[in-house]
């Protein structure tokens, strides 16, 4: 199978790796770059555990080829914190017990940031729940995730 050199910026750093044409972005990140924070939870694009940001937009990295992301700016869960200081969304998840096993969490946090970005002026519970349709959690029952996102919204739009 043909390979090409795929280059992009990941968490502010220029990276480059050989990838087959069929390599998904999530495989490029996990296997090509050894960045295992982004997770694979399904094979039909529903679960959202693989969500990253591409040019600031939440995208499911299992459903885009690495080649398609050549030259773009990718942010993963590993790139959110500023040294020891957690991103407000990460902090809100911790404060509100919005994670249990942690497996859906990277994708959930990346999606959640997108929800806040799209709803800067105001955000209510109903909207949060609707916009979380693309992210499964089997552990938390979503209650604390919704709480965390509403709390982070206040923090992030202050």
């Amino acid at each position, binding site marked *: 199978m043909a390979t090409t050199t795929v280059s992009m910026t990941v968490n502010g750093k220029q990276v480059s790796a050989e990838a087959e044409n069929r390599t998904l972005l999530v495989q490029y990140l996990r296997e090509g770059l050894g960045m295992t924070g982004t997770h694979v939870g399904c094979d039909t694009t529903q679960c959202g555990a693989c969500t990253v940001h591409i040019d600031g937009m939440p995208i499911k990295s299992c459903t885009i080829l690495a080649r398609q992301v050549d030259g773009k700016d990718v942010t*993963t869960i590993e790139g959110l914190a500023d040294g020891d200081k957690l991103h407000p969304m990460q902090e809100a998840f911790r404060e509100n017990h919005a994670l249990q096993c942690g497996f859906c969490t990277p994708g959930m946090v990346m999606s959640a940031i997108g929800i806040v970005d799209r709803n800067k002026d105001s955000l209510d519970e109903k909207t949060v729940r609707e916009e979380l349709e693309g992210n499964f959690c089997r552990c938390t029952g979503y209650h604390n995730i919704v709480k965390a996102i509403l709390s982070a919204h206040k923090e992030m739009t202050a």
Partner: protein
Amino acid sequence: MPDGSIGTPIKRREDQRFLTGTGRYVDDFNRPGQTYAWMVRSSVAHAKIKSVDTSKAEAAPGVVMILTGADWAADEVGGLPCGWQVIGKNEIPMHEPLHPALVADKVRHVGDNLAVVIAETKEQARDAAELIEFDLEELPAVVSMVDAAAEGAALVHDDLPSNLCYDWEIGVKDEVDAIFDKADHVTKLDLINNRLVANPIEPRAALAEYDPAGDHYTLHTTSQNPHVIRLLMGAFVLSIPEHKLRVVAPDVGGGFGTKIYHYAEEAILTWASKKVRRPIKWTADRSDSFMTDAQGRDHVTTGELALDKDGHFLGLRVMTNANMGGYLSTFAPAIPTYLYATLLAGLYKTPAIYCCVNAWFTNTVPVDAYRGAGRPEACYLIERLVEQAARETGIEKTEIRRRNFIAVSEMPYQTPVALEYDSGDFIRNLEDGLEASDYNGFASRRADSEKNGKLRGIGLATYIEACGIAPSAVAGALGARAGLFESAEVRVHPTGSVTVFTGSHQHGQGHETTFAQLVADGLGVSVDSVEVVHGDTDRIQFGMGTYGSRSLAVGGSAIVKAMDKVVEKGKKIAAHLLEASVDDIEFDAGTFRVSGTDKELGIGDIALTAYVPHNYPIEELEPGLDETAFYDPKNFTYPNGCHVAEVEIDPETGVVDLCSFHAIDDFGKIINPMIVEGQVHGGLVQGIGQALMENCEYDDQGQLITGSFNDYCLPRADDVPNFVVGTNEGAPCTHNPLGVKGCGEAGTIGAGAAVTNAVLDALGTRGIHDIDMPATSHKVWQALQQSNG
């Protein structure tokens, strides 16, 4: 209250790594030179394997080795064992057919394992797998239990006389029949407890390594109980002695029971690693998970409740058919017997109970414990019968419960189905549940819904369950092939920090934090100075793992016992240093004090002395401060509660909107209320999922129709509301040192019944009095159409 001690909702320390993407799940591990395994699975439900030709596949690029069922059989390795033997009527033991990890004779369900391809990359393995030629002679598939029981049905296992695994009973049928013959009223229901797929978000994975230098194996696996895997696989499958086998379950992304079992891939990879002499890694795709992870529930039941004219329950008579699937999974036979039928008293004083359970093999994926494991099935049956009986007799549904509840004054209460409940205030939970949900205000909310053309219903489930498994001798007498104690080692280091080695496992439950809270409280040290280690058979001597809501009740109690030993030794050291008699030494909040004086030493001083034993009673006491304890529970624990669901149904579409859910639970003493609430929330959504949307379906050929998230409806955030949950701590467990009952499964136990009862309460206004889970919009709409027609 000192920060971090018992009862405080401190934030979890494990969140740091999970939130920053530095968790270490099995698929995150990589080894130099590793190969990748791809499992070749059957795409038909039932077929004889006539021949297997791997020659083309062996020649494919990157292929290292291909192994089939013939290779497995040739090596004379054992089948995957069943850990619980049920003895049925007339002392007849259950049938226990062979469960090979790779099959040579026939495939018995879609997903059954034909071969493994090991290659340099996963893609090469998968591409090569497509070149394997199988000649399969398809056989008729028995899919439902009705099919399995039919005269002349195809046999799932040809060495058995039929597809019946066992015919078991509890109670005395003649006595119960006599009570029914004389009863004023009998309520009868035919119920289905539908099959579910657990679907933890992390798919199963395994990484096996063989070290020729030591003839030693290491297996990383997504397990809830690494020592159990080591025992089962080492002793019964591959004949590897335990000291040559290390099993590690690192961060695991959810389990819910389905990651308890010893799976074929674990054995296949470990077995193959010695042949290949390179690490082998396997990760399931979600479609793999759907057709190989043990599925849950799948009972078909006829239940009858006998009442007198005042609504008192006189007797319960139950016939349940339980689906085992194509093979016996590790604990499967125990679920519809000892974890189900023994809960049929519920919260009620029903004096006479009889239950017969027939377990069947079918050409479907094996079924085993899934969160709740038998108790959601019991609660669903009882609480459906209770609300149906209320409708039939005209006795209001909370009143009929009050008339039959076991009272606090009757505790401990010996049920007619073996279990003895220790404590619980069922009336109080009911009253709190009714108040929290504004039960009295329902009528006016219903009137408002009706003005908008909607149907509104409120439903309850008052439940009790048995968890904190289990007293080993009791479990053994019931057929368990393992002990069910737990172990803990509390190691105080010379400079006073503490490492706790626990046989429990966390895959979301927060033990790294809560167990540290226990130890901080028990030894009077800061919570930050305590580290909890779990999940590695090399570091922890033994453990039975985490399931059945047992970690705090059993694992936590083992930690308490180990701490007691630490304190006992500390007192002897303190007595020596303080020149007092050991009987005069008190220990409180980290300080050893001569009672009645101000002569005292902190635990830090004691620890240092233990490792630098200069001024030390060396004739009577060894140095060091490191104690191990094993705790075997005296009884199951009995969480209980009241769940109230309120729904609004749009008759035009059949869509059920869950408006609210209130849960009042008794978990005994609470260590971290934040974590307890989280456990309840998660369990509730799984129970709601079963009631409204989740269903594992096969067609009549045994094809798995719900084989991905496209077709299996997992609850999403907008399918459920916020929850209101509360706990009553007034009835602690009477028989473990912590007074805890466990909270991990309660949500799934009450929610299915509460939501279904609410749906029926709403549909009852249109003359519909029965519906099966899941009450999807399609099913509700059809029922409404039929009732109008």
